[in-house]
């Protein structure tokens, strides 16, 4: 059995990566590649570019697992922030290169595009990392188009509780668009 708390598991994974255990790298990939790839795809909207980000993120985690400090944050949030940064970096570089070659687009437009893409990716991450009851309520109300009474019946909780979950879930999601202080990836900090 995998021992202990999620924090113990994250620490064990980091230690195995530090030891140079190839099987640990495979497990890390199996656990987080779908998250990394979908975040990158959300930013870059390109399959090959998302593959490249995936390669770069796991290369970083394999070459420098010591950059991750267990206890400060979860391994998942560290991996997600690596993916986010690398994808945004690539989007910016691709946009700048295209501007240099074709003269299309301005620096301001590029920044707007980058901001939009980064917000969308943070929002996706927030949805995957929020507590499951909030995600379930949002899923029913948004994706299944259930009203809050039907949602309450589906989930077996009171209408009041469903309203609370929908509001709280959207409040969390709304932080995705908040301007970030320099260097602080807002959505990826903390334990989620």
């Amino acid at each position, binding site marked *: 059995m995998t021992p202990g708390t999620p924090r113990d598991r994250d620490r064990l994974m980091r230690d195995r990566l530090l030891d*140079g255990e*190839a*099987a640990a*790298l*495979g497990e890390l990939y199996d656990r987080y*590649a779908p998250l990394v790839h979908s975040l990158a795809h959300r930013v870059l909207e390109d399959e090959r570019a998302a593959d490249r980000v995936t390669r770069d993120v796991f290369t970083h985690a*394999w070459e420098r697992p010591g950059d991750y400090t267990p206890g400060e944050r979860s391994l998942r949030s560290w991996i997600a922030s690596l993916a986010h940064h690398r994808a945004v970096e690539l989007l910016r570089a691709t946009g700048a290169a295209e501007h240099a070659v074709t003269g299309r687009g301005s620096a301001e437009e590029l920044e707007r595009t980058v901001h939009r893409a980064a917000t969308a990716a943070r*929002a996706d991450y927030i949805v995957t990392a929020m507590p499951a009851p909030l995600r379930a309520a949002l899923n029913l109300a948004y994706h299944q188009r259930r009203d809050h009474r039907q949602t309450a019946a589906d989930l077996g909780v009171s209408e009041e509780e469903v*309203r609370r979950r929908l509001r709280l879930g959207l409040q969390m999601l709304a932080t995705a668009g908040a301007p970030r202080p320099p260097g602080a990836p807002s959505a990826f900090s903390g334990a989620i």
Partner: protein
Amino acid sequence: MTAARLDVDHRALMSYLGAWALSACSPEEAAAVESHLPECARCAEEAHRLRDAVGLLHHEEPLDLDPGLRARVLESCLDRRPPKIPVPEWAAAYDTETARLDALLQDIQDAEWHAPVRLRWFEGEKQVGRRTTVAGVIGHLMTVDGLVAVALGLEDPLGARTPAHLVAPDARTEALWNASPLPQTRSVRRPWREQSHRLVSALSLESDRSAALDVAYGGYALPLRDSLLDRAFECWVHAEDIAGAVDYPYDPPKPRHLNGMIDLAARMLPGVIGQRRQAGLGRGVPEPGGVLHLEIEGAGGGDWYIGLDGAAGEAATGPGRAVAHVALDGVEFCRLAAGHVQPREAAAGQDGDMDAVHEVLFAAASLSRM
């Protein structure tokens, strides 16, 4: 309206803002919220913010990951920082096949876990079968992988109280299926996957010791390294069963891994031919020292020479006295060895001693089991 009345409205209506932003209120409730907003800057600000947040939810399903990406990413990583503890070459096929199956399982829906699957294999001279579900197949893989776990000194997924005689793969599987009155669900995915990760890690950490171990299957044993190839093969075969049941495409293993699986089957054939002869199933009298040239075409193929006189373990290294020749595609050969193709129907080119051809094709099908 008095200040007190406004306050009651505010508290009640504020709780509706999330539902309102998602258009999940009744028309009356929505109208009440909307008439409150011009009076209350705080609610208006939040309502605006939550409506924007709804725009960040989106419908798209995540794309399926390219199954080949794993190998490319891992290879690139390991090139840049060579591992101190590599995954042994003989476990690479198992590592890859379990990851491929897990990626398929990731993509299937809850209901598909209960899709019916018919397992098929050969007993004696005929194909037999057993009905189960997608989840039941994963339980089967987990319990038989458990034999490798036990050999490595890890926990048996059937539990510590498993009777010591319960080592035959089919008996173990039936024990798991019968242990609960309820059918298995997708919850079996996690223990199956965690065990496969633990196996790869454990045998990497002690690759020298592991390579010298035997895995007991009840009735016969395989060296651990062959057992891992066999488990990789079973994982692929059953992944194809599952993919067929839920109508997903599924590719054969990469040529290097396919080659290892074919080689294992070819090495086991002389022993099975001997057993068939002992059981009175053999056809014809083999010439002492005679071999059959098994030519496997396509990616992962090659030439193997199968001893026909029932001397198990005597790997024929060269053409020697080839009395017959069989040529077939690598994937077709594996399907034959999995019991999914009837020996008489295998698309095989054949010439020479037809009794020898018959023996090798039937022995290949007899390699299969549940």
